[in-house]
């Protein structure tokens, strides 16, 4: 009996941090623009008083959000581990709440890889795994690693249990 849950060993690509920071910053900027537009409209059309205060409050909240955008990728990268063997896919991740997920290979129904424009720039891919009732993903893997892992999972997942 082990006192600790055995941690998976494989890490994501270190480039993940950059990708998360860039996407996070883009989201922050979009958020700020939306707030700015709302503030302008508020000023222009003379909306109710307290609405303006809410927008200012939201704008102030962007500051911790930007800090978090810089800190979170580091923590998340450090926390991410995964393992795939012939029996299980084991994922571990989470900055504030740490989560382990253990999925039997026989229950995996589909595995896909996909990448967005920013990930593409860094040569990264995300693997998504579908089971009967849920979907899980391993983000930001190096392209070669991702493709190999996808094929491995597909191979292991070929076997099905007798129901």
């Amino acid at each position, binding site marked *: 009996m082990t006192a600790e849950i055995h941690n998976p060993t494989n890490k994501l690509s270190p480039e993940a941090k950059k990708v998360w920071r860039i996407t996070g910053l883009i989201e922050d900027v979009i958020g700020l623009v939306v707030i700015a537009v709302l503030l302008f409209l508020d000023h222009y059309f003379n909306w109710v008083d307290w609405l303006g205060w809410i927008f200012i409050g939201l704008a102030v909240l962007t500051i911790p959000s930007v800090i978090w955008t810089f800190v979170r990728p580091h923590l998340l990268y450090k926390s991410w581990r995964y393992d795939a063997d012939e029996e299980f896919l084991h994922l571990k991740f*989470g900055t*504030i*709440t740490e989560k382990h997920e253990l999925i039997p290979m026989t229950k995996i129904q589909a595995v896909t890889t996909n990448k967005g424009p920013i990930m593409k720039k860094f040569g990264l891919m995300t693997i998504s795994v579908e*089971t009967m009732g*849920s979907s899980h993903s391993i983000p930001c893997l190096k392209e070669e690693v991702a493709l190999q892992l996808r094929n491995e999972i597909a191979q292991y997942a070929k076997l099905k*249990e007798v129901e």
Partner: protein
Amino acid sequence: MSPKRYHPLIMVLELFGLVKSFGFIAIYLFVIRFGSDSGFTYYARIGFVLVLALSMVSIFLKWRTNKYEIEDESFHLYSGIFTKSKQTIPFSRIQNVNRRTSFIHKLLSMTSLQFETSMSGNDASIEFKMVTKEEAEMLEEMVKKQPLNSDELSLAKDNEELPETKAEDNRIVHFTPTRKDLIRASFTSLSFLLLIPVVGSLFSNFNDVFSIEEEAQGLLSALPQTWWFYALAAAIIIIASVLFGVVRTFLKYGNYVIASDDNRIYISKGVLDETAFSISKNRVQAIEIIQTPLKRILGLAEVKLTSAGGVGIGEENLEINSLYPFLPVQRAYEIIEELLPAYSVTNDMKKLPRRSFWIRLLRPSWIWIIATITLFIFKPEPFDIEIAWWLISILLLLITVIFRVLDYINSQYVINEHFIQMKSGSLSTTLFVTKRDKIIEVNVTRGILQRQFGLATIGTVNRSKPVHHSGIDDIPDELAALFVSWYRERKQEITIK
């Protein structure tokens, strides 16, 4: 067997459905707007008749084209008037069988049958909306005979001389409620309270028509103003409510029968509207034992079997997967053991450690925080009490704490060799029992506070419709680790094909 049409009486059922959905429009167009000769009514009537005629033709055409065939241990379903489609569903995909004999079916001495698979969407079930009882019997028998896995298949081939109807007649009845059980059930289900809205709506309906209230004014003054008159009236109402509750319970649970044979479990119930549910024992994904506060006081419980197939008929969730909802707890455990010898429910479960009590008190309650902030901003003054807002806040906090303490007391778990048992809940408790090979996924989460206390939350996912999540909060870290390594050993029980 060549493709066969469904029973022609299915058209009667469809027509009945048509009347139900078009009835109101018909009354509106032809009765309420009887004398109207506005353009709208005129065209609406034409449109209505056209749609009605088309629907009737489509009912007939559907009956003509929809066919089924049974071959190679599969159902082959043909459908579509213009776009033809064919669907093949092997018997081995069927998770459970639901049968319902509604009042209309009874009149025509027919029944309806539904085979449920674990697939999602429209193709999930094979429905026979109208079949003769003999044919339903035959279809069910055919699906039942389907060997359960390849081992049994090869075994069956070895002894082909075995009489096929061998397992037919050793069905054992495990439970059928006595009159006493039913009376107890009618009080526990509080169904006598249902008379109140019924009387209420009846009264308001009458009132609209006869305006009782105004006449009652005069009548009221004529009533004898004595205490015994009111006592008598109250007594009559109470007796009527109780009778109503008892009759309702008898109609709903009167014919309850829980039975099983070597391979399957059968649950049937209902007097006017009969439903029956049957599932193969090794397709039971999990068992739930649910106790509401009232049931806990009376020592009763409801037992539910989880199936990967659907448990309703049509749109209705009929709860047909429930063993009798008012079983005495001890009897419930016994029945589970009789029905599913592969399962064993134990009373001997582990309680949570003391530190999970403290973590539950420390954890911030977001509902309470948000409620308090809202109360602080708006400062409502119910009953003109000025400081009421923080009294409400304190009361809310108190309720939150009580619920958490109750959940701590009720939370128990145990991991046996092949099983996991988890119980939780504040007022109503649910005990969840499942086998390792039926769990399709597990997870462990640890929040910031939990990591300080060395605690974790474990969770399981089981097949159902939709998938069933279950879990328990704040168990010690080392037990969460044990839980994960226990799940890793599931290869002992599964067979790969």
